[in-house]
């Protein structure tokens, strides 16, 4: 189970990167990156997961006393939360950029924005 999600995550990352590196359209690039981000998040969760354990919430199901034996590693979950939010922020930012670029040039082809070089 863990392994599967791990590999899926990595595959998503690769797919996303590939998309971002091959699609000239800026919006497609952004989407590809969100896919890659999703993959990364999946990997994070998978690393935190432990076979046969419960979510780290100390309610009736998991008494405080035996938490140590019953719950999974909570830290990756905290991290993934942060990661998600950040990814979202960046995505929003890139979208805004896409808007500006389109407004300035009427095109979303990234290979058209090469005045700066060398």
């Amino acid at each position, binding site marked *: 189970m863990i*392994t599967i999600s791990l590999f899926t995550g*990595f595959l998503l990352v690769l797919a996303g990167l590939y998309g971002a590196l091959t699609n000239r359209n800026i919006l497609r690039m952004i989407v590809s990156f969100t896919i890659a981000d999703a993959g990364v998040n999946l990997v994070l969760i998978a690393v935190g997961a432990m076979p046969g354990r419960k979510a780290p919430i*100390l309610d009736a199901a998991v008494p405080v006393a035996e938490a140590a034996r019953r719950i999974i590693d909570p830290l990756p979950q905290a991290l993934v*939360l942060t990661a998600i939010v*950040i990814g979202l922020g960046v995505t*929003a930012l890139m979208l*805004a950029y896409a*808007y500006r670029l389109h407004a300035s040039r009427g095109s979303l082809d990234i290979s058209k924005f090469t005045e700066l070089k060398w």
Partner: protein
Amino acid sequence: MVKRATALLLMVALGLLFATIAFDHRPDTELNRTALYYAENTAKDIGAQNIVTAIVVTYRGLDTLGEVTVLFLTAAIVGLILAAGRPGERGSFPPSGELLHTGSRLLAPLILLAGVYVFVNGHLTPGGGFQGGAILASAALLLLLTDPLHRFGNRLIRLVESLSGVAYVVAGLFGLVLAGGFLDNRFLPLGEFGALFSAGGIPVIYTLIGLKVGAEFASMLSSLSRTEKH
């Protein structure tokens, strides 16, 4: 074509790298010492049922602060970008359907309520400030959809956005002054484990986070919606 080939080649190489990592990965059978510490000490130190919340809000509060800042930045910059490229004329939008209208009138308050519930209970149940904030924002989105021309008060949003932010920092300082360190939640009494008003400052902070996140998303959405031409 060459590019695709190169990209593919690179992905293969990267894939190999990832594969090695994945194959070398051995899931823990026991909690490592960090996780163990959280499992054992959260209840008595932080007093939150939801350990993840405890970590997010307290142990790694600085991350969360940064996270909120990320949203703040994004909102500000999106505003900046779109303000610069804002089209002058406002196209008139077709009236959104009756269904949407009534639906939104009915739903918006409920959604807001749900959002509030989610982040107020962040320390007890799954969920928390971010999730709650997102839910709030969805309400805002709904309103935007129903009436694109209607701008819910930017001033209000900005007020909530900033005040909650400042308040968050101040709350952190409370921790520094009254308790063990910056963003320590114990500047309020821990209360009784599992109760709504427990876990010290966590509910307060999460509320602020919720408000701020909501506000940020709302402002982002509204700025984005302004770009809508017709």
